């Protein structure tokens, strides 16, 4: 699946998007955050305060317990500040 990052989440991870293949036991958005955070320090720093991280699956906002199976595109970003 494709994963996209925006704003300071993108800056801390150092890339705007990538393709990842998480193992089957990574079932939810929160599982994916934990799995990504274990990869290296940049992910750990981007996700160090999980409660401020927002997520979307296929362009729709989702909660941390949302299942990721079947997702084409997952995005992580800070709270929005548009308008």
């Amino acid at each position, binding site marked *: 699946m494709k994963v996209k990052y925006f704003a300071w989440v993108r800056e801390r991870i150092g890339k705007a998007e990538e393709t990842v293949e998480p193992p089957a036991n990574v079932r939810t958005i929160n599982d994916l955050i934990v799995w990504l955070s274990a990869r290296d320090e940049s992910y750990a720093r981007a996700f160090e305060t999980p409660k401020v991280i927002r997520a979307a699956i296929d*362009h729709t906002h989702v909660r941390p317990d949302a299942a990721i199976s079947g997702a084409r595109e997952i995005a992580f970003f800070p709270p929005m500040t548009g308008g």
Partner: protein
Amino acid sequence: MDAPVTIRIQQDDFDIAREIAALSQGRTDIGAVVTFSGICRGSEGGDDISALTLEHYPGMAEAEIKRHADEALSRWPLQGLTVIHRFGRITPGQNIVLVVTASQHRQAAFAAAEFLMDYLKTSAPFWKQEESAKGKGWVEARAHDDAAAARWTKS
């Protein structure tokens, strides 16, 4: 006829008069048009700001605004609405966002414009980065914006 909905995410500026005309010209069923425009301020919390840079999530930004435009149409009797949100670098005094709502009577147009703006602030995937003498920094979300959006939730 279904109420026309226009949603645009663009780098370029917009012309408010032209957008009002696009929505209302040649029609006699519209009695009220409300516009809200959001403009880049030159200072924030006492600090001068030289520019804002808006990042967005292409695809989701349009989809999220469309969801809320559809909800506005279902909640109020609207004759049409337009939402334009800019991205890229914007300097003080320049436009950031435009909401135009048209209805037969003013109440629906006012309420729908406020509803759309409250949701744009908290759920449309845009992020502002400020440039000031201190350098660049991401704008933090504000609790009062969340509270403004929450008041539209049906209890």
